[in-house]
């Protein structure tokens, strides 16, 4: 699984590429948590655009990151899922706490608004 991260003013953007299952989730978790630590950003935006396969392990990855960011007073936004990944994430109700946006740009807008509001 390929994991690329980008740090913007208000958020950490994590783009996943490849197959996300229980096996790859371990590595994804570890790498993202490392980046969260060094990035010093409160908000996390996922892009699932490159995810060619995902099972319920993907829910755990989002859920775990949500718990981490919440502790720091930040939010998690999920974006750019294909239909299957979206269907699986939707089943779990995760979008009620980590909202879904069609694009990373929309997600960034929400993060900057949240940020300004907090200031």
């Amino acid at each position, binding site marked *: 699984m390929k994991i690329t991260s980008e740090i913007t003013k208000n958020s950490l953007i994590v783009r996943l590429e490849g197959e996300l299952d*229980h*096996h790859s989730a371990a590595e994804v978790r570890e790498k993202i948590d490392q980046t969260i630590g060094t990035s010093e950003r409160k908000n996390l935006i996922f892009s699932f655009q490159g995810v060619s*396969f*995902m*099972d319920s392990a993907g*829910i*755990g990855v989002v859920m775990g990151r949500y718990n981490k960011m919440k502790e720091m007073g930040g939010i998690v936004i999920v974006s750019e899922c294909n239909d*299957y990944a979206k269907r699986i994430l939707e*089943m779990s109700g995760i979008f009620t706490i980590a909202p879904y946006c069609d694009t990373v740009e929309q997600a960034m807008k929400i993060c900057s608004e949240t940020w300004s509001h907090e200031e």
Partner: protein
Amino acid sequence: MKYKNEIKIQFPSHSENEAFSRTAVAAFAAQLDPTVEELTEIKTAISEAVSNAIIHAYDEAQNGIVTVEVKSTEDRKIVMIVSDEGIGIGDIEKAKEPLYTSKAGEERSGMGFTVMESFTDRLEITSKPGEGTKVTMIKQLDLLV
């Protein structure tokens, strides 16, 4: 049921075999010329059941054996059976509940059985604590008209 073709796959409970097992099953299912959507659903259902055997049945120890059997019928049904000789499930009804997991600390979501149910037409679980679990899923593919 009379089967048109059937395969059996066995492997040790290494998590890297999750990807192997769903690709192998997809290669078999391809014989029925499924839609991309059906193939994704089959791969996802298999991935859930195989992951459960690796994570729960054998508790991530790598020395358990996972068996996957897949059969196809003339009327385009795919029967998938994933079995293990692991710890078994005490309360199957509870295990099937959405969001129930016995491994919350490891970021399991408790949605595995819900995904299997949603992506196939029938899910049957038989299990004996201490002896193992057998998950049977049946999926009816679209009839080509």
